[in-house]
């Protein structure tokens, strides 16, 4: 059953990419500014998947469905996959591989600085996502993978700062992130209280 659900999740995570590929090379309906559409769509899917990944632990704790953990790695890696697509479009179509202008973007524009941090922090997490690395790192693995909190926060800031005005959509993502991180604070406080009682 879990294997089937995992296969289904895998396919579902590929749907946005497949849809964009079809719109780009098949139907040709990426809109008036196709590069912008690709950039926005890949970025938003990276953020959505990052938040879904962050929802797994609270879901598991609140529902008691421990098998939910089986999906976490795949979802996190797909978030990384979309973030890499997002970055690649920027490198190729916005900068045409020109390092100097990319560096200028990262240093001078706060929203791109935030986006770069979000993506850079995902790199070690993706690299240490193998079963071997998890065994090898033990306790430190869990500590290290808390970097996703920073990464997701930077990703949300990236989205908010990109917009000229405050728009509801970005605030929605900020709200979801606040809830997901807030739950963890509550869990941690409870754990500490429970320990203090013992």
């Amino acid at each position, binding site marked *: 059953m879990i294997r089937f659900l995992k296969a289904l999740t895998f396919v579902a995570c590929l749907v946005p990419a497949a849809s964009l590929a079809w719109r780009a090379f098949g139907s040709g309906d990426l*809109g*008036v*500014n*196709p*590069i*912008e559409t690709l950039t926005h769509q890949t970025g938003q899917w990276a953020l959505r998947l990052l938040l879904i990944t962050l929802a797994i632990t609270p879901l598991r704790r609140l529902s008691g469905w421990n098998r939910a953990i089986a999906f976490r790695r795949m979802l996190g890696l797909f978030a990384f996959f979309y973030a890499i697509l997002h970055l690649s479009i920027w490198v190729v*179509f*916005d900068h*045409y591989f020109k390092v100097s*202008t990319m560096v*200028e*973007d990262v240093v*001078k*524009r*706060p*929203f791109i600085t935030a986006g770069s941090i979000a993506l850079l922090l995902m790199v070690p997490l993706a690299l240490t996502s193998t079963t071997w690395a998890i065994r090898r790192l033990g306790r430190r693995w869990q500590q290290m993978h808390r970097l996703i909190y920073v990464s997701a926060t930077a990703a949300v800031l990236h989205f908010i*700062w*990109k*917009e*000229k*005005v*405050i*728009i509801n959509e970005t605030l929605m993502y900020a709200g979801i992130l606040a809830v997901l991180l807030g739950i963890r604070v509550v869990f941690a406080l409870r754990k500490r209280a429970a320990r203090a009682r013992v």
Partner: protein
Amino acid sequence: MHIRKGSSIPSSEITPEHLYVSRRDFMRTTAVVVAGAAAAGTASACGMEDGALAQTPLPNITKSGFSTSEKQNTFEDIISYNNFYEFGTDKSDPQRYAGRMTTSPWKVKVDGLVNKGADYNVEDIVRTAALEERVYRLRCVEGWSMVIPWVGIPLASFLKRVEPQGQAKFVEFTTLNRPSEMPGVHTRALDWPYTEGLRLDEAMHPLTILAVGLYGKTLMNQNGAPIRLVVPWKYGFKSIKSIVRMRLTETQPATAWNKATPQEYGFYSNVNPNVSHPRWTQANERRIGELFRRETLMFNGYGDQVASLYAGMDLKKFY
């Protein structure tokens, strides 16, 4: 519509607001009735609510030496990718929602430091000078650009007609603010109504036009129907849409984006590849229809005509 009393207009010339509004309602009702009666919706001259109106062809358009010969963007590009925050912040919102804006009848209030301040019918403004086609580059502050065949008249022709007074140094423009027809003004995205401004010499410059058409026909609502400003050497947001008021002033008027984020948008907002924006490089741009970015030109390529307006000014300071 919010009508403020202008100091230089005799009160006898001002139409009381209740008459104004009731007349508009009458026209709107008439339009709906006529549209209902007409089998194929041929009542395009009346401002119908919603739906794409057939745009009316404009007669006797002359060509202009100010036009660029660059490849023009398609009509479809120009009417489906717009920033018109009164209808929403997404680029597709104006096309989706602007159809409900009533554009006929339409008056533009001219007041402030002018001798002939009055409420002018848009048809009357258009009659000021011969209609010209002006194919201009439009550079958005967001880093994209298009080439657009506008139809309009020089703003200077109309301003001369209303006779600015000696102390007048600036023109302030205001966009329609009608919550019943504009879903975007219910949000706090900007401080409505949208206002813009030009120095009087910029307003009088021959490149500056009041556009009423696109591709030989009347403007679509999402492009700022029935009358809008086009200032091709400045970022697109300076070219204010759906104008209901022009006020001549002695002091520099407040402008919508400058009020919202002064460190990002200056009063002048000339296209300048050397002054970058906190969010976007201004050194290059994506021409809609092209995959890779191209270099942005100083004053959007209109430097030969307009650079002298800013002689001696530090354009890094007056961005």
